[in-house]
């Protein structure tokens, strides 16, 4: 146990070392280039970051923009999960439905979510709903594919036990398929959230938005304020990392039963 703790600390130190090295290289380069329109100094970026509640470039604050993005991501993500998990369970448990939908899904899946933007704008107009739709398209497939994979990974002996006890098909799904597939579904949620987070920033950069981190970055770009862009990227990274850590913590808590043996 002591050795494990030591290992964890040493791993964290290694991770930190690379980040520090990156920052040093950045700062040295910024000093050498000495042009705020190409590479802003770290100090300027930090100055934006330490005032999260202050208005940025006369608009919303960093925190407000982050909150807008986060709200959009959560809305799109939850909608995607609400559709993808039940559909994945259906496809995973029914070969018949799978044979109908598989080719269709595989064809739509590789389309980058952002490519839907023109359609989204045509269907839903500029703004919130279109952004939610883009996030939905981004988060939907990782959840769907992982749910199907998770269901396929449920051991037939587990379902045999349920059948042997005369479980109805609904009971079988509820008591065996869902819990058995859950660790894989969870991984899908984790991946989907990361994709959703990338989608929101990209979607907000498109015309018609007036808030959000993506909008803030684009706005700052138009004004040549690269330190704001840097600060926006740092916030995006931190929120992404935080979400990933939450998902990992959830994995350790909910799926400890996977054990090691």
């Amino acid at each position: 146990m002591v050795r494990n703790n030591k290992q964890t600390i040493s791993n964290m130190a290694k991770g930190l070392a690379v980040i520090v090295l990156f920052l040093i290289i950045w700062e040295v380069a910024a000093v050498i280039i000495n042009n705020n329109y190409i590479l802003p100094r770290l100090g300027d970026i930090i100055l934006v970051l330490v005032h999260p509640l202050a208005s940025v470039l006369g608009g919303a604050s960093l925190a407000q923009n982050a909150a807008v993005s986060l709200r959009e991501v959560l809305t799109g993500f939850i909608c995607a999960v609400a559709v993808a998990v039940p559909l994945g369970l259906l496809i995973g448990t029914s070969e018949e439905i799978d044979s109908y939908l598989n080719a269709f899904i595989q064809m739509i899946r590789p389309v980058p979510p952002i490519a839907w933007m023109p359609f989204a704008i045509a269907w839903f107009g500029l703004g919130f709903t279109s952004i939610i739709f883009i996030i939905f398209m981004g988060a939907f497939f990782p959840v769907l594919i992982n749910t199907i994979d998770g269901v396929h990974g449920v051991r037939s002996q587990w379902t045999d036990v349920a059948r042997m006890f005369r479980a109805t098909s609904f009971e079988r799904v509820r008591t065996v398929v869902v819990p058995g597939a859950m660790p894989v579904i969870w991984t899908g949620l984790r991946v989907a959230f990361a994709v959703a987070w990338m989608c929101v920033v990209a979607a907000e950069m498109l015309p018609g938005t007036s808030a959000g981190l993506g909008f803030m970055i684009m706005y700052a770009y138009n004004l040549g304020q690269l330190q704001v862009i840097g600060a926006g990227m740092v916030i995006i990274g931190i929120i992404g990392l935080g979400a990933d850590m939450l998902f990992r913590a959830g994995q350790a808590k909910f799926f400890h039963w996977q054990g090691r043996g």
Partner: protein
Amino acid sequence: MMEPVLSVRDLKKTFAGDEQECKVLQGISFDAVPGEILCIMGTSGCGKSTSLRMIAGLETIDSGTISTHEYQGMGPARVAMVFQDDALFPWLNVRDNISYGLTLGSERVPEEVASKRVADLLDLVRLTSFSTYYPYQLSGGMKQRAAVARALAVQPGILLMDEPFSALDPFTRRELQDEIIRIRDAASAAGHPVAILLVTHNPEEAVYLADRIIVLSDRPATIHGLIDVRLPHPRSISDRDFLVIREEVTGLVKR
């Protein structure tokens, strides 16, 4: 002789293969009575497991009948099965695994009945102090004991066991064999005698446990021989009578 709790008549099964059909069972008939241990033996792939799965309702029947008879005034006897590897649900602890069957609509019993029954079963398979453990924290033998308790929770008249000890080391295997006899006796003493149908390919195991041994022929399987094992428990594997019967069984399986 007691009334049979299970009657199998002229059971036939053919699997549709890729190129040709594969005849597995060619007319199998037998009865099982409550309280007896009936071992089904045969070479691997002869259809032993298929027969059990058909009795458990996990496999369709081509022709023939499987009837479960009235059991203790509770309707047709319940069938429960213990699988080759424990097949415990890894996301449930031991207690919840054992009570699983009792949480389903078709088997549901009042909460206090369920918890009493699970407590008794935990006691029976000596896992009381492990009731909150998860399967990954248990040894192979403990897992299989939990799986037996899970099957017994629905108070089956017929307990099917498909090579239940094949994944265990020899010491644990012997321990579990003794456990099965103890559980059978305990069930009978408690007034719920259960017919145990146990599939094995190990002649020694069959003679150690069984009251009767059914030997199946190679595919397509028919009943090759039926042997009564009239030896008192506990049996000694080096006993002369034991060895004689074991040789007889081995001979039948090989032929």
